[in-house]
């Protein structure tokens, strides 16, 4: 069978079933409001949102890989491009851009100018410490962990706090994928010999 060609984010988004983003936005708002009532501390809400995002990320990666035909990325640069151009587009219908690379290519920023999560949202004074979109960073972290990339993700800019865009800084912590690959190959060779 010929190897499947990776598909563009637009092509996938055009073919998947979609829902009105307002239902999505308002539901997310309801979740955040529930968390604020239950947990009271803004810090705790940030943590819980990140955890929920992580839970989503570890499941979402399956759908992502199945629909995008993307194969293993050669480096973190490629990974970041795929997240920005295919991942965000496929699920949220928006694309991000990637900038601010450090010299080693292990840290970059994802910039989002459009973000469906924040329609109709204004942060009240009591919630200034809240990272409203913290679920997104959890999703990226969880999904990357499933492809053996440990990352640390922090918010640098936030439109709800008056910035002109959303900026997510992604720092690659370690990437043990290479070792795993060798183990996998060894297993395959052993299996082959047995046959």
């Amino acid at each position, binding site marked *: 069978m010929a190897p499947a060609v990776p598909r563009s984010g637009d092509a996938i988004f055009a073919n998947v*079933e979609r*829902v009105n983003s307002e239902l999505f936005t308002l539901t997310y708002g309801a979740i955040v409001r529930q968390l604020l009532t239950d947990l009271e501390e803004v810090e705790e809400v940030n943590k819980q949102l990140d955890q929920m995002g992580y839970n989503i990320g570890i499941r979402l990666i399956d759908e992502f890989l199945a629909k995008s035909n993307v194969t293993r990325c050669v480096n973190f640069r490629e990974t970041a491009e795929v997240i920005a151009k295919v991942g965000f587009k496929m699920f949220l219908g928006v694309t991000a851009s990637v900038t601010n690379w450090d010299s080693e290519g292990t840290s970059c920023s994802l910039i989002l100018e459009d973000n469906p999560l924040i329609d109709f949202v204004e942060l009240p004074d009591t919630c200034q410490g809240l990272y409203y979109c913290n*679920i997104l960073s959890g999703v990226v972290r969880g999904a990357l962990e499933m492809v053996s990339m440990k990352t640390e993700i922090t918010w640098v800019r936030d439109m709800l706090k008056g910035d002109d865009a959303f900026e997510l800084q992604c720092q690659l912590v370690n990437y043990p994928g290479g070792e795993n690959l060798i183990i996998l190959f060894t297993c395959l060779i052993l299996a082959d010999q047995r046959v």
Partner: protein
Amino acid sequence: MIGAGKIKQYTNVLDKPLSKGKQEVSLGAFAYLFSELVQYNQTQVDNIGELEKRLEDAGYAVGTRVLELLCNREKGNRRETRLLGILSFIHSTVWKVLFGKVADSLEKGTEHEDEYMISEKELLVNRFISVPKDMGSFNCGAFVAGVVRGVLDNAGFPAVVTAHFVPVDGQQRPRTTILIKFAEEVIYLFIYMYM
């Protein structure tokens, strides 16, 4: 900064033009988010009743906002004052915006004057949900029931709204019926003022 002038800044959410509501996100994104909502609430409760109550509360918050949004956008800032008007508003306008289609049916209860039902063969939120046996009659439609109650309540028609599974002959999956039981004063108004 070069080009900074091009981006129009909205500091206040009310200064933003009201979106046309044409933006979409993938169904997957909504499904993941909704499942996190259910799972989180499951950790906060002891029994099914409380879980449904919490989902309904989340839906209520959505319903409140949907009414406000749609009255502004679709109805030139007018709100329904008649019982049948608001019911068909929910059945067609609200359903169409939130779920992309008009609800399958809107019926009046045969046994009670104050009961109405909106039925849906496959409710969006129940689409990827299978309820385990030990959770009995739990229905994620409670969220949608909450949306309906939020719209009705804020339009001045207080009601008790619940979601139920109704088995259909020859179909593997039951349909979901949203049962609306209006408060006494609503029926009184309806019968004596508008009939």
